[in-house]
C-alpha cells in the first residue's frame, strides 16, 4: 500500500582487465544476489535495481526496474579499455535525477537510494571523477559502498567517494559471491530487528571481504 521504493544502483567496472574469470564471477555473483533478494519478501516489495557499467564509456545497462521484473543477460567486457568511473558517476547522477520519486502531499516518495560501486582499477578520468563527487553527495544516498577488487584497485581514490570501502584480495567467484551476498544482506537489513543503540549499520562483511575505514 503506497509502499516506498528502495532504489539500488550498482556501478560495475567492465574495463578490459575484467575479462575472463573476474567478469564471469561478477555475473555469477549478480545472479546469486538476484535470487537471494527475490527470496526476501521485504526486498520483493521495495527494491528497484539499476546497473550501470563502465569501461571506455558508461552505459545504463539496466534501467531502474522492480526486483521481480529484472531480467539480466550476461554482462560482457570489451577487448581492452579504460576505466571511466567519472563518466559512470555522471550518468548515475542523471539517472537518479530522472528516476527518484520525491514525496508529494498525496504519496510517499522513495527511500534514499543505495549505491554500490565495484572496480578493479582506478578512474582513467580522474578529473571528471573528482568533479562528480560533490554532486553525488548532494543526491543524499542512504549508503555508498565501494568495492576494490583485486590487487590493482586503488582504495585511496575510492575513499574520496565514500568511507565505506571493502577490498577483495582475489577476483575469483568465492570473493565476488561473498561481496554480492553482503550487498543483498545490506539491502535487506532495513527489515530486521534494530538494536537499542540506534545506529543503522551494515551487517558485518563476510570473511573474504576486508572493510577499509
Amino acid at each position: 500500500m503506497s509502499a516506498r521504493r528502495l532504489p539500488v544502483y550498482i556501478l560495475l567496472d567492465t574495463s578490459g582487465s575484467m575479462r575472463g574469470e573476474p567478469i564471469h564471477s561478477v555475473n555469477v555473483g549478480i545472479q546469486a544476489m538476484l535470487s537471494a533478494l527475490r527470496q526476501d519478501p521485504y526486498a520483493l516489495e521495495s527494491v528497484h535495481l539499476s546497473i550501470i557499467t563502465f569501461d571506455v564509456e558508461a552505459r545504463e545497462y539496466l534501467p531502474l526496474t522492480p526486483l521481480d521484473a529484472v531480467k539480466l543477460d550476461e554482462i560482457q567486457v570489451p577487448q581492452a579499455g579504460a576505466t571511466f568511473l567519472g563518466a559512470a558517476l555522471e550518468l548515475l547522477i542523471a539517472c537518479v535525477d530522472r528516476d527518484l520519486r520525491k514525496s508529494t502531499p498525496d504519496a510517499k516518495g522513495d527511500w534514499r537510494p543505495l549505491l554500490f560501486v565495484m572496480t578493479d582499477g582506478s578512474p582513467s578520468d580522474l578529473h571528471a571523477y573528482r568533479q562528480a563527487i560533490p554532486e553525488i553527495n548532494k543526491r543524499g544516498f542512504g549508503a555508498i559502498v565501494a568495492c576494490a577488487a583485486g590487487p590493482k584497485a586503488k582504495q585511496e581514490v575510492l575513499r574520496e567517494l565514500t568511507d565505506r570501502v571493502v577490498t577483495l584480495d582475489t577476483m575469483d567467484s568465492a570473493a565476488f559471491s561473498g561481496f554480492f551476498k553482503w550487498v543483498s544482506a545490506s539491502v535487506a537489513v532495513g527489515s530486521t530487528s534494530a538494536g537499542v543503540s540506534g545506529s543503522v549499520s551494515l551487517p558485518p562483511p563476510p570473511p573474504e571481504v576486508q572493510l577499509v575505514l
Partner: protein
Amino acid sequence: MTRVVTCRTLDGQVIEFVDEVIGSGAMKDVHFSPDRSYVVAFYKTAQDFQAKERLQMIAGKYRESIFDQVGGDYWQNLFCWPTAVLEHEGRLGLVAPTYPRHFFFEHGSRNGDMLGIKGKEKEGKWFAAANLRNRFVDPRELGTWLNHLKVCLLLARAVRRMHMAGLAHSDLSYKNVLVDPSQGLACVIDVDGLVVPGKYPPDVVGTPDFIAPEVVRTSHLAKDDPNRCLPRRETDLHALSVLIYMYLLYRHPLRGAKVHDLDDEQRDEMLSMGEKALFVEHPTDASNRIKVANAKPTELPWADTAKLPFTITGPYLSQLFLQAFVAGLHDPALRPSANDWETALVKTVDLIQPCLNPKCEQKWYVFDNSTKPVCPFCGTPFRGKLPVLNLYSSRKEGQYRPDNHRLMVWTGQSLFLWHANNLIAPNEKLNEAQKKRVGYFVFHQNAWWLVNENLPDLMDVSTKTPIPIGGQLELKDGQQILLAKGDGGRLVVVQMVDA
C-alpha cells in the same frame, strides 16, 4: 565429509552438531544435530555475562515454568524454546528444537516456484502483504481466512502465556513468528531476547512495522534517559495487534497516505510510525487513509478500506482494533491484552460461516449480523436458512444472562463442551475428554437439525422436551434450547435468518 562435533551443555547434557552452518541470521549461525531433531545456534559476537545468565534463565527456569506443568506439552507446538545453553570454542550458543516441517514452504511461489522459495521458512510477511499473496505465493500455501484466524488465535495465546509468566518477547514481528496458514498453525521463535521487567532489559528496539509508537518517538534519546521508552509487555501488545490486523486484512494499520515530511523520508517514517502515528481507518480522522489510486492493482481489494473495512472481522475484533489503534495507539495502558485478543478470536471463530462460492479465495467470512449476509471478499450472498445461536449462561439457578457470544450454524458445524458451559474455555487447559465434540448440526430435508452426541441435559425448553444422547432436535426461530444444567450451563436462543 562434514565433521560432527560433540560437546556438553552448561547443564551437562551431551549434544552433537554438524560442523556446517545451515542458516545464518542477524545474530546467530545455526547448525543441525546429526539426526536433525534439534539445532545448535552460536552467537556471532561475544555475549556479556548478563546475556549468558539470561539465556540460562530462559532455557532453565522460565522454560520450566511454562513447559514443566500440567498441559505444558501444549506449548511445544506454539514456541520454539531454547532447551540448553553451551559454550564451544569461546562462543556462546543455544540448543533448540528444529522447526516442524509445516513451517517450510511445500510448494513455494507461483509458476513452478519462480522465486525458488520452496523449502524455505514461511516467514509471515509472505502472507501479510496483499501484493505478495496475489502475485507470488502459490495459492496452495495461502490457506483460508478461517485458518488465518486460527494463526492469530495461536499467536495471541502464545503471547498471553509469556505475559502470564511475567516475560515480554520484545521483538514480535513476522520474522519472529512462523506461520502455516495452509493448516492454521503458528509458532513463536527467537525467544532468546526475552525481556524480564526489572531484571533483563531489552537489547533490540524491535522490527520496523511493529515497533510501538512511544518507542519510535523516543528512539533518539539515550538508552538510560528516563523518558526513553523501550520494549516491554505493552509494546508486545502493539506488535500483536499489528500482526493480527495484517494477517486478517493483508495491509498495515498505520501505513496510509499521509506525508509528514516532504523532504526527508527517514523523518517522515519516524513521524508516521511514532509521534504522529494514525490508524488508516480512524473513525473520525481520515487524513491517513490508504489512497486506492496509489495502490498497485495486486494490492486490491485489500488496500481499499472502504471495500474491506476492519469491521469485516466482526464485532469482537473490531472493538479491539479500535482499542489498539485509536484509544491505545499512544496510550499503552489502554491496549488490549493478549488474553483479550485470544477471547475475541475464539468468539469470532464461532461467528464464521462458509462462503457459498466454491471459487472464493478466502472460503469463510464473519456473519455480518444482517438478514442478508454477503461474503465481503467475493460478494456472494448467502441463500437459504441460516440459524444463529445466541448463547446465554446461568449465574444463578434458572437465570440466564447473555454472553455476547453467538454460534453460526452450518453443515458440519460442531458443538463442544465450551459452547455448553461458559466456565470452560477452549485453550491449553482442556483435557482429552473435553476436546471431543458433543453435538453437530446438519441440514436435512429443508430443516436444520442439532444431533446430540454427548449432552446429557439437552432440552427443548419451549416444549420441555428432553433430547436424549443420540437423538436430534429441529432448530426453529425463537426456540430456547438448554445445553447444560448447573453452574455456567448454557441456554441457546435461536434466530433464523432466511435469505
